C-alpha cells in the first residue's frame, strides 16, 4: 500500500519537478517581497498615524514635558482643565462648533434629499446641466463666497452669529450631500415606491414614510459628511465669526500667544477637534473616496 502510495506520489512529482523548482525560486522571492511589503506597510501606518498619536500623547503631558520627546511621563489632565474653564477657555467655541454643525446638518439634509430624489427619479430639462453645476460649486474658492457675505452680514447686523455661519456652510454642504444622496436614492428599488403609489400614497407621504426610511443609511452618511464639513471649516469662520460665534478650529488661534504657542493646550484642543471626526470618518470610510470625487470613482 505504501508502495502504491509512493508510486502515485512520485509519478506526478516526477513530471512536476521542473515546475516546482521554479516555484521554489519564486517562493524565495515571494518571502523577500512579502517582508518588504510588511515593512512598507508599517512605514505607511507610521506616516498616517504618528501625527495623531503624537498630538494625543502631548495632550496628556504635564507642562514641563510638553516640549520633550518623552513617551513616558505622568499623564495629567491639566491641559484639558485649562481649555475647559481654565486660563484659555474654549468651552464657548466648542458649543458654537456643535450648534453650527448640527444646525447646518438639520437644514441641509431635507433640502438635499428632496433634490437628490428629483435628480434620481425624474428626467427634466436642465437635469444634466444642474448636476454639473452642483459639481462645479465645489470649485468655487472660499474667499469669493466669504467676502460678499462679510459685507452683506455687516450691513444686516448678522456678522459673528451662528446663523451667518450656517448660511455660508450651506454653500459647501448642500451640493456635496445632494450628490451623495442621489447615489443612494439611485440604488433604492422602484417597486416599493410603485406599490405605495398604487395604494394611494401621496407624494409627501411617499417621501416621508417610504423614501426617508429606505434611504436612512444614506442619510446617516450624508449627515456625517455635513457635520464633518461644518466642523472642520476654517475659512468662513475666519472671515465671519471672530468672537461671539467663533468655532473650535478658529479658536485654536487664541492659543498662539505673544510668548509662544501653548502647545500642551493646543494638543488638548486639537484632540477635541480631531477625535470626534476620526470616529465619524471610520464609520463612513467606505464613502470617502466616492464622496470626494462626486461619483467619478465607483
Amino acid at each position, binding site marked *: 500500500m505504501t508502495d502504491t502510495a509512493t508510486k502515485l506520489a512520485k509519478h506526478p512529482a516526477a513530471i512536476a519537478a521542473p515546475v516546482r523548482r521554479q516555484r521554489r525560486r519564486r517562493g524565495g522571492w515571494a518571502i523577500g517581497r512579502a517582508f518588504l511589503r510588511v515593512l512598507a506597510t508599517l512605514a505607511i*501606518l507610521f506616516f498616517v498615524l504618528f501625527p495623531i498619536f503624537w498630538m494625543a500623547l502631548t495632550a496628556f503631558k504635564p507642562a514641563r514635558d510638553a516640549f520633550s520627546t518623552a513617551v513616558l511621563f505622568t499623564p495629567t489632565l491639566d491641559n484639558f482643565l485649562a481649555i475647559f474653564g481654565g486660563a484659555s477657555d474654549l468651552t464657548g467655541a466648542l458649543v458654537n462648533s456643535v450648534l453650527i454643525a448640527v444646525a447646518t446638518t438639520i437644514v441641509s439634509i431635507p433640502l438635499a434629499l428632496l433634490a437628490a430624489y428629483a435628480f434620481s427619479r425624474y428626467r427634466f430639462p436642465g437635469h444634466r446641466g444642474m448636476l454639473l453645476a452642483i459639481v462645479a460649486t465645489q470649485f468655487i474658492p472660499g474667499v469669493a463666497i466669504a467676502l460678499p457675505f462679510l459685507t452683506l452680514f455687516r450691513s444686516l447686523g448678522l456678522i459673528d452669529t451662528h446663523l451667518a455661519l450656517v448660511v455660508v456652510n450651506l454653500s459647501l454642504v448642500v451640493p456635496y450631500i445632494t450628490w451623495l444622496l442621489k447615489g443612494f436614492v439611485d440604488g433604492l428599488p422602484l417597486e416599493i415606491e410603485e406599490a405605495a403609489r398604487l395604494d394611494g400614497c401621496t407624494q409627501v407621504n411617499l417621501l416621508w414614510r417610504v423614501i426617508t426610511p429606505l434611504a436612512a443609511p444614506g442619510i446617516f452618511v450624508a449627515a456625517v459628511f455635513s457635520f464633518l464639513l461644518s466642523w*472642520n471649516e476654517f475659512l468662513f469662520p475666519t472671515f465671519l465669526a471672530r468672537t461671539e460665534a467663533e468655532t473650535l478650529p478658529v479658536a485654536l488661534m487664541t492659543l498662539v500667544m505673544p510668548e509662544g504657542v501653548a502647545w500642551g493646550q493646543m494638543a488638548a484642543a486639537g484632540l477635541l477637534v480631531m477625535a470626534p471626526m476620526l470616529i465619524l470618518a471610520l464609520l463612513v470610510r467606505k464613502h470617502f473616496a466616492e464622496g470626494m470625487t462626486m461619483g467619478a470613482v465607483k
Partner: protein
Amino acid sequence: MAATTVQRPRSRSPLRKHSVPYLHLAPALLAVVLTTVYPLVSALITSFRHWRLNETREAGEFVGLAQYQRVFTDDTFFNSALVTLNFTVISVVLSVGLGLCIALILNNRTRLSALTKALLILPFAVAPALKGFSWRFMLNPDTGVYDKMLDSVLPFADNINWLGDPFWALMVLALTEVWGWAPLIALMLLGGLNSISPEVREAARIDGANAWQQFWRVTFPLLRPLLLIVVFLKAVFSVKIFDQVVTTTGGGPGRATESLNFFAYSQGFTFLDIGYASAVSWVIVLVLGVLAALYLIAMARQEAK
C-alpha cells in the same frame, strides 16, 4: 453622469409631470443659488468698484477695470500666484506619487493591509487648520519630534529652521496637505486597482512580463484616466489652500508662503480693501474655472468608458 440614471415611465398629467421635479429641487436650488451664485455675482460687481471698508461702509463709485489693472501690476499678487503654482505642483506630485505607492503596496488581501486601508482615511478627517498646527509643532527646530528624528538621520537637517526658510516653509505646507491627501488618493486608486481584472495581469505575467513591465504596460495605462481625475481634483484643492497657511506660516517667512486665497484674505480682511480683494478673488475663480472644466472633461471621458 445623468445618463447613468434609470428613468421609468410614469403616467401622469403633463403639467404635474413637468412641475414635480422642480418643486422637489426648489428648496435646495434656492439655498445653493443664494449661497454660491449670489456671492459670486456680488463679488464680480464689487470688483468693478472702489470700496475700502475703512473709508466707507457702503460701496463706492464704479472704476471699470481699474482693480483688475491693479491686480496685474501688483508684484505681491504675482508673488502669491507663483507661491500657489509652486505649492500646487509640489503637493500634487507628492500626494499623487505617494498615494500611488501606498495603493500599490496595499493592493493585496493580507490582514495588515486590510487594517491599514481601514485607517487610511484618518488624516483626511483632521481639520486642515489643525494639521497646520500639528506639523508646526512636530517640526519645531528646537523641540519638535520630527525635527529630532530627521536630525538624527540626516546630519545636514540639524541647521534647518523648517518654517524660517522660504523653501522649507513651502515644503512643510505641502507636507501638511500631503499627509491628508496621499492616503485618500491611495484609497481612490485602490478602488481603481480593484476593478482591473487579475486575468489581465496574469496574462502579462505568463507572457513573461516582469513586475516592472506589468506595472508600466498594464496597470498604469488602465489606471491613467483615474490618475488624471485625481491630479485635477488635488490641483483644485491645492489652488484653494488657505487654512494651513494661516496656522502654519502666516504667509511667511516674508511672503514666501502667501497663497492666492491668503493674499485675497489679507487684502479684504486685514487691509479692508473689498474692491481689490473681490477682483483678486475673481481671478482665482477664473483659474479654478479652467481647472474645473478640465476636471469635468476628464470625468466625462472616464464615464464614457
